[in-house]
């Protein structure tokens, strides 16, 4: 039997993942031609490699179509409710760090915390005859976060790009978005609430809980996870 390990197919995430796997002693063979997404590990034929987009990896793990994958924790938690039931987060990989945050216009000088936002959201409908609008691509994370803070009166406006521009464009009042340095938010005159960090995300090695494995496959999966985790702890 074999198991599949899915790796990000492009960008810095791909490079950093491959570097980490090399340190863990896996000799990854890249796809033969540009159209193929299948790779392999020299000397370890029972471990198949698939190169997929980071969001596809999250979906395939949740569907139980692959056993193991490297993707951002934000994408994994966004793609399914109660992510820990579907996925086992086996190792944080130390790269791809970015935070999912709640950000409001800097002009909202009266709003610094989620409690402030709760007050504003509650009064919003009476004042403006519509609920507070939040632009985000993170439906799941936003709904959970606001529910945890007891805020129900708001609406999500889906935003699949340039979310930080939504308040100035008038399509939303505030945003929930991912940021690594905060500079894009700053350039758009937005500020992060002091207790508004929804998730500190980074690249994770994730196993699917929805895939059936033989005892040998399970042992292989565990040993792959252990080797990768050890390589994270001992940067060469």
């Amino acid at each position: 039997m074999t198991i599949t390990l899915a790796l990000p197919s492009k960008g810095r995430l791909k490079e950093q993942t491959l570097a980490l796997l090399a340190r863990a002693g896996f000799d990854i063979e890249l796809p033969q031609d540009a159209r193929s997404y299948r790779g392999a590990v020299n000397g370890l034929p029972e471990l198949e490699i698939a190169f997929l987009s980071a969001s596809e990896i999250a979906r395939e793990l949740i569907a139980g179509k692959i056993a193991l994958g490297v993707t951002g924790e934000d994408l994994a938690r966004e793609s399914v409710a109660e992510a820990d039931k579907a996925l086992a987060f086996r190792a944080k990989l130390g790269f791809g760090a970015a935070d999912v945050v709640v950000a409001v216009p800097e002009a909202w000088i009266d709003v610094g915390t989620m409690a402030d936002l709760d007050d504003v959201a509650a009064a919003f409908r009476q004042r403006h005859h519509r609920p507070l609008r939040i632009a985000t691509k993170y439906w799941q994370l936003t709904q959970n976060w606001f529910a945890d803070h007891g805020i129900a009166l708001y609406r999500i406006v889906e935003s699949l790009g340039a979310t930080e521009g939504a308040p100035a464009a008038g399509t939303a009042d505030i945003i929930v978005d991912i940021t690594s340095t905060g500079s894009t938010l700053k350039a758009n005159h937005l500020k992060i609430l002091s207790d508004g960090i929804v998730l500190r995300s980074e690249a994770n090695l994730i196993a699917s809980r929805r895939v059936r494995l033989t005892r040998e496959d399970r042992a292989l999966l565990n040993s792959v996870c252990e080797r990768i985790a050890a390589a994270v702890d001992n940067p060469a």
Partner: protein
Amino acid sequence: MTALATTIELFLRERKCALPEIGLLQPAEPILNAAGEDIRRRIFMTADRQGRDLCLRPEFTIPVCLAHLASGKAKKRYGYVGQVFRQRAEEPAEFTQAGIEDIGARKSVAADVRCLADSVDMLRLLGKNRLSVTLGDQAIFEAVLKAMGLPRAWRERLGRNFGDADRLRADLDRLSGKENGGLGDLDPKLRAAIEAGDRDGVEGEVLARMKEAGLSEDAGRSAGEIAARLLDKAALSAVRLAPEKREMLEAFLALDAPLRDANRRLWSFARRANIPLGKPLETFHKRAEQLARLDLENVSLRYRSAFGRRLDYYTGFVFEIRGGPSDEKPLAGGGRYDRLMTVLGSRAKIPATGFAVYVDRTRANSASKAGATVRAGGGA
């Protein structure tokens, strides 16, 4: 249609209810707007070919209210029985609800009493004769907050979390503690304007920031609104909820008594705390008296001061009915929702009460007791 549904419809007609046609597929927009985004996780959404969001009917109250508004009538009673769809952890997502919505009745105490009487009678029709009712009244809680002289911003926050003991406690902790909404880092010019109570100055600072960010005042919060809230917050940042006031509030929230004793308990609380509860308490008293005149054999009524529903359009009297005091899930729930019609777009304020019975829960229990099948037989 099942025999049971026919029986319920007959009951509704006898009680002078119109039976409006409410489709299984409902536009999602008004439901999300009224109940909030959070409900999206608990309903079944779909879309039509024009991309309009639709959902499987998650309840009847909002669709019935929309139908009422569309009819242009001032006052009417509506009844319904049918399937609703909600994502629930331990029970099937498809289940049957029946209930009455009484819209536009001006005599509010009479409407409250009738609402509870109707729901008890409907449960009796379904074979549930032993009932325990928990009653609450948000208006009393709000009167207590007001009589204690708490600032409006605090009253609003506490009122919003009424019915949720954990959140209420967290609110009280915050209001009595050190982290009571400090202003954080502000630039010196702004801080000076706040300290001087210079509203125009603060507003000017906000406006400058809005301009710089390209925010339009018409699109959302205005500079005046932001400045006003900041000044309120500044005024409150040094104020703490005094320990004796907190004790008083906690004493109030701990009231839990048979309804026949509740009035006396509330009076003595008000006297001890030395706060007048005025009209809300009079209304409570009148309602309790009228409830006492109902035929309530085998029905226990209990008032819990902390009992409320956490939906912002419920405004006063609310209740839940169980088969026994320790039953986890209610057989029915209802109350007064005077704010819903305006939330749904009505210019005029229209008072309303209503209740819904979880028909399947009344079946499941009796079926297991009688050893019968769950299939609904004639209840009448």
